[in-house]
């Protein structure tokens, strides 16, 4: 065989810079919006985890001589970059601290809903019969119930603690995972590969855990990214209404709730956390959308 024969045929190569070629390798070529959203999410996560190292003041420290200071770009001083609230607490410090709790509640709450819902969905699909009837009835109840009312009732009656709050926001959305997991397991159980591994003597648990779950995982993850902004917003809503995170703990929704009283006088108190929540939920939604398109074989 001569050397010419094994030389690759000429391929049209697009010259790209380092950054652009990296993005293409990660499947982000041309997806600038998604890239920006991802960077923003990464930044938020970084601040949530490591924010305490560069937080200028403790979030509860009051500076009563500097109440309602405007942020630096509205004529304030560099001492309080994003201004102060009615008690003279530094808004930036509170934002960093609040972010930490909001992200924690959002992620853990989403995980609780995803795991609980998917598990119940698999159980319904496996046992069928009355188990499925009851679980799907619960799903219907959950769907027809305005969740915010339910959450308010639980928090008002059971009392309020961080654990209860996380569980309550986690329960939100379980019915979507349950429906999704149930229908996907039902269709997966009809697939020949499940029959094939059963004929090899694998037990039910092993089949679900090692064969079916990896197949439906993609869809569940996408559902989680769609649900995550909702959970963060729910926590913000509850905190805004005063039934969520209680002082001295703070979350974005709680800061927003406090800022509401000074919306005319000192808009920055409410606007700063509002913008962070807005862009965070938007970014997660954009990334979730992109993930769904990438994982959906019919859209390729």
């Amino acid at each position, binding site marked *: 065989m001569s050397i010419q024969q094994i030389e690759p045929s000429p391929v049209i190569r697009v010259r790209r810079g380092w950054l652009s070629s990296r993005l293409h390798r990660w499947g982000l070529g041309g997806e600038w919006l998604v890239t920006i959203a991802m960077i923003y999410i990464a930044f938020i996560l970084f601040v949530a985890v490591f924010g305490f190292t560069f937080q200028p003041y403790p979030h509860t420290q009051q500076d009563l001589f500097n109440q309602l200071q405007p942020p630096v770009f509205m004529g304030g001083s560099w001492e309080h970059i994003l201004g102060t609230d009615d008690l003279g607490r530094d808004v930036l410090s509170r934002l960093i601290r609040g972010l930490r709790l909001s992200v924690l509640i959002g992620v853990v709450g989403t995980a609780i809903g995803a795991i609980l819902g998917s598990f119940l969905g698999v159980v319904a699909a496996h046992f069928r019969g009355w188990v499925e009837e009851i679980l799907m009835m619960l799903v219907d109840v959950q769907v027809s119930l305005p969740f915010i009312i339910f959450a308010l009732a639980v928090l008002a009656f059971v009392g309020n603690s961080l654990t209860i709050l996380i569980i309550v926001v986690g329960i939100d959305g379980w019915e979507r995972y349950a429906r999704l997991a149930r229908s996907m397991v039902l269709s997966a159980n009809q697939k020949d*590969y499940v*029959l*094939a*591994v059963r004929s*090899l*003597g*694998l*037990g039910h648990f*092993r089949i679900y855990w090692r*064969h079916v779950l990896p197949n439906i995982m993609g869809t569940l993850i996408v559902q989680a990214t769609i649900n995550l902004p909702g959970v963060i917003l729910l926590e913000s809503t509850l905190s805004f209404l005063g039934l969520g995170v209680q002082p001295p703990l703070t979350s974005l929704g709680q800061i927003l709730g406090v800022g509401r009283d000074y919306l005319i006088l000192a808009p920055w108190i409410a606007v700063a956390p509002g913008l962070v929540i807005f862009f965070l939920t938007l970014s997660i939604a954009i990334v979730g959308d992109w993930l769904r398109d990438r994982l959906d074989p019919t859209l390729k």
Partner: protein
Amino acid sequence: MNKPVISDVSEPNGLHQKPLLEVRDLSVVFDTPEGTVEVVDSVSLKVQPGRTLGLVGESGSGKSVTCLATLGLLAARGRVTGGEVLFNDRDLLSISEAEMSKLRGCEVAMVFQDPMVSLNPVRSIGWQISESLILHQGLSRDAAAKRTIGLLDMVGIPNAKNRSDEYPHQFSGGMSQRAMIAMAIACQPKLLIADEPTTALDVTIQAQILELLSDLKKELNMALILITHDLGVIAEAADDVAVMYAGRVVEEAPVLELFDAPLHHYTLGLLNSLPRVDRKVDRLSAIEGAAPPPQEFVTGCRFEARCGSCGDACSGIRPDFTEVSPGRRVACMHPMSIS
């Protein structure tokens, strides 16, 4: 080739040996919204160790259901209503699900019709094969991976070491079926059930897969049940044949005798409808009518409506088996005469 030799030599021995798998009067019903339908009606089969039983019949004649019931793999709406399945003297219908799981893949394994959908799309081929090894033989991950490469080599997958890391979508149909076979024989089962293993493949690959199956059968000394609707496949690979029609076995015979002198009119019809290359025929002959759906199964001879030589006695009572010679029986009131 040595195929006729095998049949001739092993026949007398094979018939007197104790069967590896014996299905006795197995009946299976499906619960449907319209009511209960009996899809398998008192089917009896015998598989001798080291031999191939060809199970032939039209779609819906109950071939696959019989085998799935044997392994306890029926879908939720299917129920076994009677009979027994003896495998090495154990009744598979009465043992627990846990024992059955241990047996499946270990002593009895199955290969399915469409290899492209029978492999898990998100796991690599090697992972899927080694899983059964780890489960049944308690091998370590490394040992299982090594053995997997050996198995892939054995079923004729070139460059097995690299290909074991590939995913099902990177395999062609024939290669996938080879991988499925590797998975099924991983624990050296005594019985392999192949449910139309070549139907989804093109003809050149079919021959290779059949050859592979009969080579492996000899090498591992296992018995094989070959489910097919293709008499060509039967002629090529089977030692004994059971012909099924509408949920019942209608004729059983060693393969050469079946092709030489079919006794049941349905078998004759099947053989006549094969295209011939040694004769000039204008039209292929077909059996008039269609096989009845399970809802319309009758107690009497189910082939009566399409049979040319039936008498009054045919409807009403179920035709009993007549033992014509050892290993050869037919369920017909007016069987073809043996010429």
